[in-house]
């Protein structure tokens, strides 16, 4: 580092305000010293700058850091104006939603990338910049500050004392006695008092100066944890749906684990069974409409052996568990959370074969909507055949019945009914609220006899090894924040200058409280309490101007 010489002979780095050795302020002003970094030079202030230095300087500036914080702030606000892409309702098409719903404004919003603000590259760049700034700002300042505080002397240059915010000169005949009195009081107030040549330095709360650096380290660790999520294997977030009775493989477990849903319980608040106090609000929303509890009663299985995909696995039961919101099932680093549900999904339809004239019913037959049979023999001579099945029926462009998906959302069937009366068979197309007879009037029809439903649970499958990094980062941040905000670094210099006693005081925060304490320390002594030079200067200027550095 480039250096310059202080009058005491010591070489100081450029940018040093207070000489590292003798403590003489290097500038010739008479206004108050900026004690932020104990007058040390930030390391980034140098003469010859390489490109590396220029980048370093840029990120070590607090002004730049504030600007980055404010841009991030504004960007986050913009990201809330319209709903974000991944929070749209499932029926919306993200590519057309913004234009369709919000017109030109929506189009611009989409085009600017604001529809996906928080996953966009420029937002990630902002956060990364905050991270870089945290690292470089801290490194730039902490080492000089640490050295300055560690090596600080008891005896300071007179200019240094004169330019502290709290300063007073007094004199007394009983220097020794008075100083000892003050020293005792200071020690009672938990100050650490150092003595040198009859001069005193009382200090307490130095550790609070490190607060900001500790909290910055916490933030850096936290951001590092966020980065870690992108490393493959550290974080996984998948979903699985299981219907009552089904056993399904847990995605992301490499086929090792399976979950079987026995029952999905969904309870609502009913005025009859609940505490009277809830009556009014239940009635406002509707009885049985506010969810009280939902849970998935499952069994967790582990696969035995190493089957080939497609082969039926051999399973060994691990345990039974009720997955509720706030109570996930955890195993082997994976957590299953209860997040969603579908109630009353249709699983089977029952039909009776009905003689239209007599109304006589035969059957019923039960058609399993996920695995219907081809032939249903009711009794000798009475048979129903399933000719076609459309789980999610609609009429396609050619006017034919077709299926939209494989899920039984809207089942339709083509049945062929054979009875002794109609041995050649009659064909009917049966759907929900539709009954089409393509070959003219049939003698028999399939009458809807009932419906079976099952519930499904939507589970979130989650693996997160970064959580502990994030937690540690957050904890360290809070410690640093409290360390820096709730304690204060206070120092009092008491120096003998010829026949006078010079007293100066400094604290990094809370001058009001410091002054209250000083009042108590110097009360009834010959040594006068240091005066606040900021407020005093103000009382000389009228109009309440502030001293600005």
């Amino acid at each position: 580092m480039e250096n310059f010489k202080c009058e005491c002979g010591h070489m100081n780095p450029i940018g040093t305000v207070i000489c590292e050795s003798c403590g003489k302020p290097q500038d010739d002003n008479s206004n108050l010293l900026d004690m932020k970094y104990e007058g040390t030079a930030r390391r980034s202030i140098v003469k010859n700058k390489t490109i590396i230095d220029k980048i370093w300087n840029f990120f070590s500036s607090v002004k730049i850091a504030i600007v980055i914080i404010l841009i991030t702030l504004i960007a986050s606000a913009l990201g809330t104006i319209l709903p974000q892409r991944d929070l749209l309702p499932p029926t919306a098409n993200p590519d057309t939603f913004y234009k369709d719903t919000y017109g030109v404004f929506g189009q611009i919003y989409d085009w600017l990338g604001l529809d996906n603000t928080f996953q966009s590259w420029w937002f990630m760049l902002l956060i990364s910049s905050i991270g870089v700034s945290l690292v470089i700002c801290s490194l730039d300042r902490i080492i000089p500050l640490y050295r300055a505080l560690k090596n600080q002397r008891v005896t300071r240059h007179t200019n240094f004392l004169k330019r502290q915010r709290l300063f007073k000169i007094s004199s007394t005949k009983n220097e020794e006695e008075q100083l000892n009195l003050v020293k005792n009081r200071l020690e009672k107030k938990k100050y650490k008092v150092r003595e040198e040549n009859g001069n005193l330095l009382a200090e307490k709360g130095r550790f609070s100066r490190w607060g900001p650096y500790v909290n910055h380290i916490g933030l850096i660790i936290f951001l590092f944890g966020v980065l870690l999520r992108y490393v493959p294997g550290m974080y996984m977030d998948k979903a699985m749906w299981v219907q009552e009775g089904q056993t399904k493989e847990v995605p992301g477990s490499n086929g090792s684990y399976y979950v079987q849903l026995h029952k999905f319980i969904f309870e609502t608040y009913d005025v009859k069974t609940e505490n009277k106090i809830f009556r009014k609000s239940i009635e406002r929303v509707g009885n049985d409409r506010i969810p009280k509890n939902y849970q998935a009663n499952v069994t967790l299985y582990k696969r035995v052996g190493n089957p080939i995909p497609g082969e039926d696995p051999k399973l060994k039961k691990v345990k039974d568990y009720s997955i509720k919101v706030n109570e996930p099932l955890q195993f082997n680093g994976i957590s299953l959370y209860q997040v969603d549900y579908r109630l009353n999904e249709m699983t089977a339809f029952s039909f009776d074969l009905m003689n239209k004239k007599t109304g006589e019913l035969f059957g019923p037959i039960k058609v399993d909507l996920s695995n219907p049979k081809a032939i249903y023999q009711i009794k000798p001579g009475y048979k129903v055949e399933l000719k076609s099945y459309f789980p999610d029926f609609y009429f396609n462009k050619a006017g034919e019945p077709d299926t939209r998906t494989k899920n039984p959302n809207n089942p339709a069937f083509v049945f062929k009914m054979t009875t002794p009366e109609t041995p050649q068979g009659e064909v009917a197309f049966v759907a929900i609220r539709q009954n089409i007879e393509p070959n003219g009037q049939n003698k028999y029809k399939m009458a809807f006899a009932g419906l079976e439903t099952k519930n499904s649970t939507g589970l979130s499958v989650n693996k997160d090894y970064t959580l502990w990094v994030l937690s540690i980062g957050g904890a360290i941040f809070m410690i640093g924040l409290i360390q820096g905000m709730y304690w204060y670094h206070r120092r009092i210099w008491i120096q003998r200058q010829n026949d006078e006693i010079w007293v100066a005081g400094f604290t990094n925060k809370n001058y009001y409280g410091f002054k209250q304490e000083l009042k108590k320390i110097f009360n009834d002594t010959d040594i006068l309490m240091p005066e606040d030079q900021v407020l005093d200067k103000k009382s000389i200027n009228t109009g309440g101007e502030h001293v600005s550095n």
Partner: protein
Amino acid sequence: MYQISSNLLFFSFITYLIATFFFGGAIKSQKEGKNKSAMIGITITIIGFISNLGYFVTRWIAAGQAPVNNMFEFVTFFGMMIIGAFILIYFIYRLNILGLFALPIAIIIIAYASVFPREIKPLVPSLKSYWLQIHVTTAALGEAILAVSFIVGLIYLIKNIDQKVRNKKTFWLEAVLYFIVTVIGFVIISTAFSISGYEADYKWIDKNGMEQKAVYNLPSLVAPHKGELLTKDKLEAPFEVPALINAKKLNSVIWSILAGAVLYGIIRLIIRKRIGAFLQPFVQKVDDDLMDEIGYRSVAIGFPVFTLGGLIFAMIWAQIAWTKFWSWDPKEDWALITWLFYAAYLHLRFNRNWTGEKSAWLAVIGFAIIMFNLVAVNLIIAGLHSYA
């Protein structure tokens, strides 16, 4: 028990009103610090606060769960915390003018809370976690302490902004006061119609084409999408809104704006000058540096509490309930924005020496962000997170 809790709340509300007058009297007298009026004022405030705590405890007992679960409960709790923060700061600094401003603001907030449905609602499964209580109460406490910096900042600005001229500063200060008037106007109008039992039912079509019902508690100036008024001889709105917009809320907003404008107009007519100018003489004796100190100190104390409650506890709870500690939903966003803003405040103060008036303006903006999160995000921008 529920009735007792309501009564206790009402009692504390009244005591705060009375205490305000005593603090007003304290300003008139010459002595700062301990004077008789102020002593009575703070004592009454403390009595009110104890009653307020009583409301909280009895409601908790009645409901079987901590009462911080809907708009009414949360905003009331927030108001109570502001009083608590005020009492704490008062005992440290003994600034009487603070009472004259902090109490009315807390009163307005509690009054605003009572516009919302008050019944105790049973908890849906995702709210059944004690992390909910911890997160919400700590966040409210943090925000209340930050609110003190707003109050002190406001006093600072009222004192120091030159009202003899007309510039950006006088405009914006007046805008802040106008906004407070609007809130009062909204409370008055809502309470008036609520007391009269006003109710109008609408049948309307939502964005999925399904028929829905809406109950209006204020005369409808805007009707919901394809709305049909069912209740005879109630005001029928001349305008209809598209299905995407919540007509009832928009109606409330329009009424607030109207009520605010009318109330402000009346006030201006009576006092014949800007509200800022009107209040200025009352605050002349306050010490600028002390206010600056209190303003900063409230942020220094409140920021860690807010971080802990509004961010950290919130993330813990989100991770447990929804497997994602952060989903970028509007409420979380605005909590982050609040946090970033106060971080910027602290950095601007330390490193760029933004003290005094600049700091006061920042404190006002910070509180505006908190209020935006509480009101606009909860009620207008919906999310996973919204109350009411």
